[in-house]
């Protein structure tokens, strides 16, 4: 079937197909170019190669069960997706989240944002030929993911932020790992600035290439780093502060020209701001009550002792071990019984606990927000990540719609590459941070 551009193309031009299986198209997007020599006269962007039916699937899952699907939307920053979804449901339910959990959420979502920007810029730089930058940034990302893994138990698809709070408390040596990750990332950012900022090749491919005017950016519904690179100040964290963002001290970096280089630079600066937020949040995080952090004897020692005598001391268990966290619940989860998973200790030891557990997971019970619709947005890696949920009072959403930031950004690609050269497609597309899972849902 001929596409639009095949019908419209002039007879003396060449049609070139890029993607979907093209290294720079990230596997899920196809661009048809109408070329006059190397110059792009027209183009057609085709998306949908990763349409996985997220919205339809969510209508068939309960509010609790669909959390893993949100991980896989913007899979480079899954924690922010968790947060966006969970906070939308919380807005419907009116749940109040404990202070410590709010700090952990901020910590985790900023770490995710750093990993998102690192990946985006790494891919962009690699596609421009700067392979060293790619390796450096992946190194930094590994350190960030180490922190995330230690806390959440998974590297990417975490499902860590739960309705009412977070899944588990921070590890005892969290600060040490975090400090290392922050230091490593700072070092990498410095290196990358040194490698790219005055690099002639990189500048030629990005400076004044694919310039977006602020008016067009607004007309296209751009948000996030891409909008800010054009000089428009809009950050959901500042405009509609959620969690503890209004209590922290940080800036919103802005670009001036709205070209590829500004999009790169804004992301780099934003990572520095995110590191600032992470440090402040880690310093301000409320301590759990001292009686709870006192710890106990090592599990191995307890097992050894149990051969000789009955062990009565508390055993120091990992804070994110399932079944050992009842006493941590007040710090990390809301007190509303119906909205959070009952602690495993109760489920396994008392009949009421077991009934609570069943009632939470049974079809038709569990989390049932009141009738109505709600929209809530957080600042995702690409911009305003909004969830629109329509509830009909049952335990599964009647309709769940994701406002995907990069859908709006990629919609402008055709306009940005018109009149440019083929080689300009690569850095332009790279700087947009197209994420298939979020774009096609």
């Amino acid at each position, binding site marked *: 079937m001929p596409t639009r551009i095949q019908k419209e193309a002039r007879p003396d031009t060449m049609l070139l197909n890029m993607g*979907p*299986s*093209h*290294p720079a198209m*990230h*596997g*899920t997007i196809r661009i048809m170019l109408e070329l006059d020599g190397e110059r792009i006269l027209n183009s057609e962007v085709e998306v*949908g*190669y*990763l*349409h*996985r*039916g997220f919205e*339809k*699937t969510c209508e068939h899952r309960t509010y609790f069960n669909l959390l*893993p*699907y949100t991980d*896989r939307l913007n*899979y*480079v920053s899954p924690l922010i997706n968790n947060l966006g979804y969970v906070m939308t449901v919380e807005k419907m339910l009116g749940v109040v989240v404990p202070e410590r959990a709010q700090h952990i959420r901020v910590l985790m979502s900023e770490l995710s944002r750093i990993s998102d920007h690192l*990946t985006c810029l*790494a891919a962009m730089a690699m596609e421009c030929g700067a392979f060293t930058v*790619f*390796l450096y940034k*992946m*190194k930094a*990302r*590994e350190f960030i*993911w180490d922190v995330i893994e230690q806390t959440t138990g998974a*590297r*990417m*698809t975490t499902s860590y932020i739960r309705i009412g709070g977070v899944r588990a408390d921070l590890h005892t040596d969290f600060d040490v790992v975090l400090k290392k990750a922050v230091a490593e990332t700072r070092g990498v950012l410095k290196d990358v600035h040194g490698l790219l900022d005055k690099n002639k090749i990189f500048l030629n491919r990005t400076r004044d290439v694919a310039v977006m005017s602020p008016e067009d950016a607004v007309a296209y519904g751009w948000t996030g780093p891409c909008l800010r690179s054009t000089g428009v100040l809009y950050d959901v964290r500042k405009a509609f502060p959620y969690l503890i963002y209004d209590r922290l001290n940080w800036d919103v970096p802005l670009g001036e020209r709205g070209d590829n280089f500004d999009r790169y630079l804004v992301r780099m600066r934003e990572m520095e701001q995110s590191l600032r937020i992470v440090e402040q949040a880690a310093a301000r995080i409320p301590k759990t009550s001292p009686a709870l952090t006192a710890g106990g004897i090592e599990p191995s020692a307890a097992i050894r002792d149990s051969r000789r005598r009955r062990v009565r001391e508390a055993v120091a268990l990992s804070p994110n071990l399932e079944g050992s966290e009842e006493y941590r619940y007040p710090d990390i989860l809301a007190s509303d019984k119906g909205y959070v998973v009952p602690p495993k200790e109760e489920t396994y030891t008392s009949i009421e606990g077991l009934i609570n557990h069943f009632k939470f997971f049974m079809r038709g019970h569990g989390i049932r927000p009141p009738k109505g619709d709600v929209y809530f947005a957080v600042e995702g890696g690409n911009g305003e990540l909004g969830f629109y949920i329509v509830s009909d009072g049952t335990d599964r959403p009647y309709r769940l719609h994701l406002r995907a930031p990069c859908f709006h950004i990629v919609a402008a690609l055709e306009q940005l590459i018109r009149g440019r050269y083929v080689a300009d497609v690569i850095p332009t597309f790279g700087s947009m941070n197209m994420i*298939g*899972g979020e774009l096609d849902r």
Partner: protein
Amino acid sequence: MGVTEKHMSRDKKKRPPAGQFITTQFNSLLGWARKFSLFHYPFVTACCGMEYMSAACAHFDIDRFGAGWTRFSPRQSDMLLVVGTITHKEAPVLRTVYEQMTEPKWVVAFGTCAVSGGIYDNYAVVQGIDRIIPVDIYIPGCPPRPETVLDGLLKLQEKIQHQDQDWRWKKRTY
């Protein structure tokens, strides 16, 4: 692989030192050569791509196992890594890429979505790429950790070593 000394001459002084000649089956020699020179084509579509990037980069370094070269042309590669969800819209593309690869070729289903469709059991997603193309190794995980990927690669190498090497070009049917 059997290593023997060959007696080239009756004269003991002129006999070459041990270990300079290797006799082996041609099959296992080919297998040995092929398993350590896997040029892979990453057909990256979704989340697993992030873990593929990790596996390919310095921390986990897939290059240690002889699969370092990423070729972005199916004609130059012999291992097709299907990384991520394959939707019905993407399926013809995947089959075209597979058919463009020259023999011998191996396919790795990377991640649960490629293995079986994973959590996406709906109208848009192909329930496992083995419904489109033949698969040699399945790597589970959503997404698989880089260590799992390396383990899968070792398993594939073992398979290559021990399989019948069709060293004359032969079209496979599926």
